């Protein structure tokens, strides 16, 4: 009975190892990103420029074998630049739709908070609906459809911070942080990793992803585990440390990511350990601290975890 982590025999072990070769010292973040993908959500990476956000997105796209587009968000980007436009065809005399970069399986929306809210919402609607409506015609997006958005911390100049309602569309938010000493030394020695990301060969087929999603979604979560998830969510509503608590949708998301995390650990059941492992990534961007009003920090979440006994 696989209770403990069996990473070596896991089907995705080679994939994680390969990603680890490119993004040095960030295995936890890679796992969280994968968990987010298998839980069927979208990923937001928030950090300073130059810590490897784009590299992580490129690496995942390459290893998963997904059709990949990168959209660099700027303040003059228009919704049509994402969704596509209809052009007049002189030969035939009618209009032909030219799909925009959103018609791909993995979108890297780089520096999403530099675009205007109107453009941001075009992307976010696509994320929510899985389809794009342009010029009165609705077109489905390819499946799987996975968005990795990156953003700079909101206090940087020239940004439009995402409103709460749109932040909620991202299942997981990650901060990559600076690499540790060994990883940084290795990085300096190799002279940058982005070139390696481009040369990776896919380890999965696009058709594998629905199968894997199905496998994680049906992973066993026992009643005591559900009670623990509920207790955590309820505690965020009851406790004074947060302005308002987590929504039921956030609770569902937490359980889904915990399932995917447990599956990546090679278990056939979800444990409280899995819930605690993914809680900061799921909850931080959805909660505001009562003191100062900023987003909750991992320390806040740590205090929350320590205040809820495991049922």
């Amino acid at each position, binding site marked *: *009975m696989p*209770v*403990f982590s069996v990473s070596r025999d896991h089907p995705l072990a080679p994939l994680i190892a390969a990603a680890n070769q490119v993004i040095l010292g960030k295995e936890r973040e890679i796992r969280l990103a994968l968990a987010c993908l298998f839980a069927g959500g979208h990923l937001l990476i928030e950090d300073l420029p130059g810590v490897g956000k784009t590299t992580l997105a490129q690496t995942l796209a390459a290893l998963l074998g997904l059709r990949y587009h990168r959209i660099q968000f700027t303040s003059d980007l228009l919704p049509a630049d994402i969704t596509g436009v209809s052009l007049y065809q002189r030969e035939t005399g009618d209009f032909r739709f030219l799909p925009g970069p959103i018609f791909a399986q993995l979108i890297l929306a780089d520096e999403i908070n530099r675009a205007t809210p109107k453009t941001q919402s075009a992307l976010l609607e696509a994320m929510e609906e899985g389809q794009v409506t342009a010029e009165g015609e609705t077109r489905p997006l390819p499946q799987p459809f996975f968005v990795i958005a990156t953003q700079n911390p909101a206090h940087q100049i020239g940004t439009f911070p995402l409103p709460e309602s749109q932040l909620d569309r991202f299942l997981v938010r990650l901060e990559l942080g600076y690499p540790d000493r060994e990883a940084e030394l290795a990085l300096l020695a190799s002279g940058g990793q982005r070139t390696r990301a481009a040369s990776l060969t896919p380890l999965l087929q696009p058709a594998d992803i629905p199968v894997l999603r199905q496998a994680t979604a049906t992973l*066993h979560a*026992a009643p*005591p*585990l559900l009670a623990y998830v509920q207790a955590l969510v309820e505690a965020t509503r009851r406790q*004074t*440390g947060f302005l308002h608590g987590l929504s039921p949708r956030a609770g569902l998301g937490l359980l889904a990511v915990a399932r995917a995390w447990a599956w990546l650990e090679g278990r*056939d*059941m*979800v*444990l*409280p*350990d899995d*819930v*605690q492992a993914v809680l900061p990534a799921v909850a931080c961007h959805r909660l505001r601290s009562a003191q100062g009003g900023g987003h909750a920090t991992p320390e806040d979440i740590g205090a929350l*975890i*320590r*205040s*809820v*006994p*495991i*049922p």
Partner: protein
Amino acid sequence: MSVAAPQALDRGAVPWLFATALIATAPHFFHQPEWLTGLALLIFGWGGWLWWRGLRLPGRWWLVALVVASCAGIVLQFRSLFGREAGLALLVVFTAMKLLELRSRRDAAVVTVLGYFLLLTHYFHSQSILTGAWLFAASLIVTATLIRLHGGPNSRLLPTLRYAALLTVQAVPFMLVLYLLFPRIGGPLWGLPQDAYNGRTGLSGSMSPGSIANLAQNGDIAFRARFESTPPSRGRLYWRGPVLEEFDGQTWKAMDALALARPDISGQDPPLRYAVTLEPHNQRWLLALDAPSTWPADSRLLANLTLLGNRPITQRQRIELTTTLDYRFNVQESGTTLQRALRLPAGRNPRAQALGQSWRETIVDPGSRVEQALTLFRTGNFVYTLTPPLLAGDTMDEFLFGTRRGFCEHYAAAFVVLMRAAGVPARVITGYQGGELNPLDGYLVVRQSDAHAWAEVWLAGQGWVRVDPTAAIAPTRIESGLAEAMPGSDALPALVALRQDWLRSLRFRWEALNNGWNQWILGYNPERQRELMGRLGLPDADWQTLAKWLFGACGLVLLLVSAWTLAHRPRLDPAQRLWRRASARLGRRGIDCPEWMPPLAVLARVEAGQPALAPAFRSFVEHYLACRYGPGPTNLKALRRALAALP
């Protein structure tokens, strides 16, 4: 041994401590010298300002100077640092000063303890309902402060108060048990409330013009009475107090030497049974309707029908009485008494004396002389008023032939002077007349404003007969009370003059409540306790028996509470119970595993801290996780075995 550094007090706790100190000391402000109240408020203000501006607390020398100055002031005021009042003053000032050195949680704890202690001291001054309510609220605040101190900066106002209220409510059963069963000693536990002794208004043993009119402006309750049958009509409710026989031309006085002869009363109707609850008035007389036929054992009836207790009434007291309303009294009166009842100071009030003597010469029948005097009052343009003009010199002459405006004591005194001059033995009776029936609890409330003076004359063959000259001037005073007799008079106390019905009923309600409080809470004395114990099947319970029942009852309450708590404890899953046991075992081996810590994290701790234990614990965790979180069937047996295998 190392001393732990004192824990700093968080800023948000300070307002709570101020509230505690203020609410616990405030009632003393009304009983202390003004300068002490001012000093305490000044210190409160200073401390509050320092907190508001976030300034440093005053240094040690400031505090020493304050202590010396306030002690010096208290010694000057009370001639001592000890004793009740000086001790209370010290407590209040020092509590305020403690707020100037709120640095650590220890200081805060001192303030709350002082707060609880101060609450008790208020019973020295008053034991009224309002005091009780204030102290109940105050204890709630002090408890909430204590909770806030332990809750830290994140606790919120409402939940803290709710918690304090919950604790208070939980304490109520214990309070009741202790109240009912704690062995009672005679007299209140804290000594008497101070207001039993000082500043009591009421009848005194003397009367001069204006003394009863002053009393009439006081709405305090003198006593309450409860009749076993329907109360007699208002006009018959004459509550006899001191009988005044000595007159010096200005002031009437009661006899110093007490006539010890028993009065001779012949009653003609069935006796009326009632109980009187007297407010303390610091005098010995009791108030009864004329003429008493039975009275309590520790009192006696004087020859002039005054009922006298053995000791001054210094606390609220309930007495059972019976009275015959139709009576003849001392038809055979001693010569000395009659002589005394004819004595007038020579040379005083010559016109009144001359008028009386003229009646004696022209009218043969003494009863007709009485009628003559009442006719004079009725027809001589006399006015009944609460605010008569001041009289000096020969006061009765001036009243009868000059001002002709007076209150009941003027009429009673002038009547007796006229009668004595006319050769009819007469004396002044002071007491209360009437009263107000509270329809809610059936108690008749008699106030100081019902104080009254009337007269008594001795007629041959009839004995002493009551004559109320006020009834001749203002019959409504006797039939309906002072408020009806004095419409629009603003000299009457507000409570007596109330005319609106709803205000009246509100007042009735409040007084019924007060009466209940007096009868049942404050009046719960050793006799009542014995009575209650008797009804509970424990007649003649001594204090040892009471103590046994006390502990038994407290134990029972505790048992019920714990049983309820145990019954409502969340049920643990068997696997989880085994996990708790394993956690406890780890705890004994120095590995702390709090309830929020997930199993694999605990395992990691064990592997790091107790590698020898790790394999056995790892197997236990594997079974536990399978049982509790796994998809398959639970195998508790294997889990128990794994637990047993834990060293």
